[in-house]
């Protein structure tokens, strides 16, 4: 009996610590700033345990039964804690913190009650000094074990959700064991056993269904109704709709909102094209949604538009789907447009055609693969495809949130021999957004925008070229393939901006 209870203490202690670690790790993972998350979670948890210990004095009778109930509660709450937290985060957002600390407090209180209860169960068999010393040492031993196992084995192999479910199962096992040990003294021990098995079943189901649960919550994270999802070999495409607002997400990252995408795409295309009245051939890299092409088609002198996008399903969707093709005004169905599904840089290297204008609409440099598309090598290859009088324009992340990144792109394009001219525009869903014009000769701003627009006009155009102080940076670095400096700086800047 005594041994059995000490083993229980060991398991309980491990479980308690796991829930605390999972909550700390999960919240730092989701919210960032791990120091704050860990210390507030641990603080709350320890305090709650204190509250629990204090509360335990109010339990006088039927200690074994109370212990079993509490054990089952800890098992369920703790076991599902990671799943609950993640679902909350996906559904709700801000109340997340409230739920986090509530859950941590609740588990802390319950765990705080547990240990004193075990001590009282053991009271009859042991001297006080012995009791305290063995219970506490086993308690700390359990803590040591999981604090080592968690980062090395559990988190990487099981993940947060399944780790906490697993330890929930351990808690229930202890409860069931206790039912067995005390079956003589517990009146309705059958009921307790049934309850324990029910909880066990729930946790097991959770453990098995964890993957489905995650997928479900992922979808809910987008908030609005999902009208379209597609997993292609290249990305996960999700289109959501809320009233008249369509939003496109690629791999979970917002690409546009139909409410203000015109601001983005007009800014991307017209400062260049308004100065190229003789442009015939235009190349678009990225931009498989056809929005940039829609703006380009407003210039009747453009004869051929080549759109290079990696993902055939993406371009096909925006060409043929009735809802999506309406967003780009059927641009991809125009006979002037040729869609090429290829890896942009590889494709450019392999062919010799040159263009009057090139619109570069790649994702931001969030990883090393994308970083290559902002390297000196890339701009050198781009330059080979641009006619001497031509202009290229590159979307270049936000000069407000990521000024160093923005100006590093500028340095890099210059290192490839380009003249560069930067400008920026406000796109409410994104914030202040940056663009860069690349050319052989100095760029001249147009005096008018010769095509119909909703946002850009001759009066505001010059203001886009003015960079306030907070969008400046004196960074000197160049993004080369061998240093991938941009990805590092970009990560720093956005990491800070997203906190």
């Amino acid at each position, binding site marked *: 009996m005594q041994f059995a209870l000490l083993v229980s203490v060991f398991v309980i202690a491990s479980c308690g610590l796991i829930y605390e670690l999972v909550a700390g790790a999960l919240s730092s*993972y*989701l919210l*960032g700033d791990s120091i704050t998350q860990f210390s507030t979670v641990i603080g709350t948890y320890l305090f709650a345990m204190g509250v629990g210990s204090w509360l335990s004095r109010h339990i006088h009778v039927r200690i074994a039964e109370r212990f079993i109930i509490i054990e089952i509660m800890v098992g369920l709450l703790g076991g599902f804690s990671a799943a609950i937290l*993640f679902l909350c985060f996906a559904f709700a*957002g801000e109340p997340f913190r409230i739920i986090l600390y509530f859950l941590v407090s609740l588990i802390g209180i319950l765990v705080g009650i547990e240990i004193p209860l075990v001590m009282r169960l053991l009271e009859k068999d042991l001297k006080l000094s012995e009791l305290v010393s063995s219970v506490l040492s086993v308690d700390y031993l359990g803590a040591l074990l999981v604090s080592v196992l968690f980062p*090395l084995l*559990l988190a*990487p*192999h*099981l993940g*947060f*959700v*399944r780790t906490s479910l697993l330890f929930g199962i351990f808690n229930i096992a202890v409860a069931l064991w206790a039912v067995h040990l005390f079956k003589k003294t517990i009146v309705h021990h059958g009921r307790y056993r049934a309850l324990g098995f029910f909880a066990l079943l729930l946790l097991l189901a959770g453990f098995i269904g*964890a993957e489905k649960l*995650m997928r479900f919550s*992922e979808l809910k*994270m*987008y908030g609005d109704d999902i009208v379209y999802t597609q997993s292609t070999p*290249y*990305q996960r495409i999700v289109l959501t709709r809320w009233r008249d607002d369509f939003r*496109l*997400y*690629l*791999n979970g*990252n917002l*690409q*546009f909102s139909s409410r203000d*995408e015109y601001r983005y795409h007009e800014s*991307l295309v017209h400062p260049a094209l308004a100065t190229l009245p003789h442009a015939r051939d235009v190349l678009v890299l*990225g*931009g*498989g*949604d*056809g*929005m940039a092409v829609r703006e380009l088609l407003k210039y009747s002198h453009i004869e051929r538009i080549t759109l290079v*996008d*990696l993902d055939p399903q*993406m371009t096909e969707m925006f060409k043929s789907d009735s809802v999506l093709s309406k967003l780009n005004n059927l641009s991809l169905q125009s006979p002037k447009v040729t869609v090429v599904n290829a*890896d942009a*840089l590889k494709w450019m290297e392999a062919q010799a055609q040159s263009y009057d204008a090139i619109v570069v*609409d790649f*994702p*931001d440099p*969030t*990883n*090393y*693969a994308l970083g*290559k598309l902002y*390297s000196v*090598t*890339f701009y050198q290859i781009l330059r080979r495809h641009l006619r001497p009088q031509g202009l290229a324009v590159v*979307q270049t*992340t936000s000069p407000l949130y990521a000024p160093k990144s923005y100006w590093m792109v500028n340095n890099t394009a210059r290192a490839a021999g380009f003249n560069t001219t930067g400008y920026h525009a406000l*796109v409410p869903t*994104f*914030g202040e957004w940056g663009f860069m014009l690349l050319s052989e000769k100095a760029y001249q701003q147009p005096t008018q925008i010769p095509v119909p627009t909703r946002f850009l006009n001759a009066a505001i155009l010059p203001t886009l070229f003015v960079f306030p102080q907070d969008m400046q940076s004196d960074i000197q670095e160049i993004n080369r*393939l*061998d*240093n*991938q400096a941009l990805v590092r700086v970009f990560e720093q800047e956005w990491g800070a901006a997203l906190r």
Partner: protein
Amino acid sequence: MGSGAAVIKGITRRDFLIGSSGALLLGCSEQAPRLPSGLLLGPDHSIGHKLRDGQFPVATREIHTPILIAGAGIAGLNCGWWLQRNGITDFQLLELELVAGGNTRSGQNAVSAFPWGAHYLPLPGTDAHYVRMLLADLGALQGDINALAPTYDERLLVQAPDERLFINGAWQEGLIPRVGIGASAKREIQQFEALMNEWGERKGADGRYVFTIPSAMGSADPAFLVLDKITFKDWLQQQNLRSDVLHWYVSYSLRDDFGAGQDRVSAWAGLHYFCCRRGQAANAESNSVLTSPQGNGWIVERLSKILQPQLKTGHTLVRIDAQFNSVSADVYDSATQEVIRIICEQLVWAAPLFVLPRVWPAMPHIIPPDYAPWLVANLTVNNIEEHEFTAWDSVIYQGQGLGYVDSTHQTLQFHRPQRVLTYYHTLSNLAPREARQQLLASSHETWTTQIFADLRKAHPHLEKQCSAIDLWRWPHAMAIPVPGFRSSLLSRQQTLHPRIQVAHSDLSGVSLFEEAQYWGVKAAQKIIAT
């Protein structure tokens, strides 16, 4: 790739996580492995055996050529390059295998080109003059070849991130252990780095660097020969450097270059490894290297093209008879299975030294090196997540093997869901003979199981992602510079016969591109001088 613009446009931290949350929150489940199949390859051993046993038919006809080079590895190819560069085109370059390259050969499958051997060339310093000339000829080095820091073709400079180490359950940047190691290990690593910097600056009485590459350009000062009397391990211990972490790092480095660790390698060679490089680039960090999907194979391909008129693959030199005014060389043609006698004025032996006595029974005695056997595996891996495989070279701390390079790393392709990982393993835990036996006796399955066991720590799912493993066994991969090797070099570098030159990295006792190339050029220069 995608449409619209930025991945991060208008993002909240919440959005940011959607794409990546699954793995961390769910972890990964393990499943019973299914071993992928593949090829079990190696140098042509039927010819190797025949060479050892001398079972070749007699020559059926005789032809004449002024210069004959046997072996189209780095040394032989560069010998030919230098001759051509100096206007000499009347020579033949023979290669036993069906392709040139020797230890620098490479392969290609549907996913990528990949190395079977040498995978990188560090930036050459000014002592590696011929390497710079070659790179300039190949268009890889631009501008002044004598500049301290010339400009290199950005496509060949290794892309970032270049190296990473899996230690204490996570990847760190760079191969020197830094994360989660004790204070004393940290201190010793610092001491070691300081010592190596100091030795890197050291010059002999003749004003030359003690350690440089090619090593023949280094100081001849005999004062440093004491370093060749002890192992590098003993030397480290003399410096009071005993940390396991440091010793692991040193062992990894030496096995990677010499096929044996500090317990076998001479202190001179150990110091040479850490102190010989001073190359810089105007457009890269000074510790950068030149590489391509096929490793150093790009150089072999380019040189093979230049030397196409002279290169004869599938031709093995099987017998040498050296006379006063000519050399008679019997050459076995694998395609026709006949032997031709080639009478030449000059013969360059650009093949490993241990083979030479088998084809030239009358040769003066020289001491050949010990050779370390190696295994190279090319793993075709699918469904790769970008963030999983970021670096060019990935090493596992205290791993069995030497880690792997991602052969697709140097491509400009954005989307690389399939990769070829080139895994290196030196059988340094056994004596060379036994190791060679083990290398050849073990089955494809045995090796595959061992490779996955080694990589599992860092890549628990690799077995499921891997669709093929092709293996190349190198029984005599490279010379091991054991203590005393510097003194045996004298016998190897002597002139064996006025009409026979030896050109091979074995002459340096360390198997590196710069060394092989140096001896190839030197042999050509001697021929030009006669």
